[in-house]
């Protein structure tokens, strides 16, 4: 019976109810998108790193798992690593930022192919570099910028590039160019950003790792398994804090929306509260109705918020396929739901307690 009263109350003011649900959904969407983007980008980074086919990664001092700045490693060091026992192949790469989320990688394609097995090019979309100004773009970048093999591109580092091929994603960055050209364009001649190492046999990886750590004590040297395992939200400085802040904002928005919505509802239903009290309804009964109504709004807001997070993901994929990668994070649905419910319950508490404390005679006289 209480459930029917709650549902009828919500149906009685459909616009208020729908607006409340939508407003509660906004922070749920925000939390899910943020967590999805964080996890998606990290998973994408891990996938790309694994796609290289290396066993060990050597990064310069002062870098984190997600950031690379410039090309401070002398190329001679790559040769020195190559000479180490059990090292089958060592290749240096230059990574340079083009826009906020797009990077270009400079490689020696022959050596990269030797390590990774090479790129897989889309059918009819060209192949490897033939000249110093050739560029390979991945399918998502090509889709977003409407590029095909043979096209000319000038908006990358203000250099005239010729698209030699469109490759499947998942290896290196979205843009790949000859290493010498990129070094010359960025003033990094003779230097690389990071070094990838392949051991002659998997069993020798620990030995090579120990050897490199002894040789380069200040460098960040990881096995690829170790590196990809570090690509978590917790290990990215500030990201977890940022997510916590967004979660806090979500609670506050849910709280404020429901506080205003339920406060208005309680005011509008003052006489009805008086009627219930005249019938013998206790304070708890009245509070329960207000809280139950808020919980229904909160559940509705969570469901709509989950739906909107899918809509946001689809929108990003259609409009900007080469930009951020948003993962679907079902493990965060109950968390976002709990955050939303915490907000709405807090928000409903004051209006509910006000309603429960109303004087029945004054409430019945309310016009």
């Amino acid at each position, binding site marked *: *019976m*209480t459930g*029917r*009263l709650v549902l*009828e*109350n919500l*149906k*009685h003011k459909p616009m208020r109810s729908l607006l409340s649900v939508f407003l509660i959904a906004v922070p749920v969407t925000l939390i899910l998108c943020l967590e999805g983007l964080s996890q998606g980008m990290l998973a994408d980074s891990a996938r790309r790193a694994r796609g290289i086919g290396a066993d060990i990664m050597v990064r310069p001092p002062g870098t984190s798992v997600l950031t690379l700045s410039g090309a401070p490693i002398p190329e001679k060091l790559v040769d020195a690593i190559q000479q180490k026992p059990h090292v089958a192949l060592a290749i240096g790469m230059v990574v340079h930022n083009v826009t906020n989320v797009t990077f270009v990688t400079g490689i020696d394609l022959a050596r990269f192919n030797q390590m990774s097995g090479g790129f897989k090019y889309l059918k009819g979309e060209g192949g490897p570099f033939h000249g110093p100004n050739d560029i390979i773009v991945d399918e998502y970048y090509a889709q977003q910028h409407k590029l095909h093999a043979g096209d000319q591109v000038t908006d990358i580092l203000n250099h005239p590039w010729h698209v030699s091929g469109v490759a499947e994603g998942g290896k290196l960055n979205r843009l790949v160019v000859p290493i010498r050209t990129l070094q010359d364009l960025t003033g990094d001649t003779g230097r690389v950003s990071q070094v990838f190492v392949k051991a002659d046999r998997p069993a020798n990886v620990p030995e090579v790792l120990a050897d490199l750590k002894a040789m380069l004590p200040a460098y960040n040297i990881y096995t690829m398994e170790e590196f990809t395992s570090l690509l978590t939200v917790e290990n990215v400085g500030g990201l977890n804090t940022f997510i916590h802040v967004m979660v806090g904002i979500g609670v506050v928005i849910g709280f404020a929306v429901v506080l205003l919505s339920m406060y208005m509802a309680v005011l509008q239903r003052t*006489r*009805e509260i*008086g*009627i*219930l*009290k*005249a*019938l*013998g*309804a*206790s*304070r708890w*009964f009245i509070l329960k109705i207000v809280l139950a109504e808020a919980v229904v709004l909160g559940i509705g807001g969570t469901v709509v918020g989950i739906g909107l997070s899918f809509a946001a993901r689809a929108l990003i994929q259609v409009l900007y396929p080469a930009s951020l990668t948003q993962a679907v994070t079902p493990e965060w649905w109950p968390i976002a739901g709990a955050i939303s419910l915490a907000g709405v319950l807090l928000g409903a508490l004051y209006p509910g307690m006000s309603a429960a404390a109303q*004087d*029945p*005679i004054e409430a*019945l006289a309310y016009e």
Partner: protein
Amino acid sequence: MSEPLIEIRDLRKVYRVGKVDVPALRGVDLDVPAAEFLAIVGPSGSGKSTLFHIIGGLTPSTGGSVRIGGQDISSLTDAGRTELRKNKVGFVFQKFNLLPNLTAGDNIAIARHIAGRSPAVEPEFEEVLKLLGISGRLNHKPAALSGGEQQRVAIARAIVNHPAILLADEPTGNLDSENSGVVLDVMRDLNRRLGQTILMITHNPEAAAFAHRTVRMRDGRIVSGAGS
């Protein structure tokens, strides 16, 4: 002689308005035997509604005593008065006061739910619904009912938990003469057939004529009809 159902002695109520004390009841004495249909008349401000509110447990008294079925309700806490409203009294208001979002049937069912009973009415209460003439209107929301029908639904809701007392505050105040007659007939029938004790506030002498006895109030006191 048996003890009256309602026994009121030197009942006083003072409202505080700003810094001024306004006496609403100045020492009311009244006995109401079970199964009586009592009309209370008097000008506005005479204390009729305040008397109702105290008997119905909507507000505490300032002094004196009210005993219902032997229980002194003047010392009840807020929770105690809630229990009184749930089990011992039923209200009928001038403005019907049905919950607008629920059907007539659900308005009756929620009174049972609040009292801790199953929402479905007992088979014998179906007869009361027929007597009230609302059996076929239970699936309609109040907005789809006439004023007379709404008031009869309100009466059904007030008595569905078998309260000792039905308190009707100007039950015909918002009705035309035809519907007023129907509602008053129904109340008299309930009193005669079920022995329902009814206290009715009214300004209408014709309505008061349906009652066994009429009590007149003025300036917070009963001026005539107090003796049962």
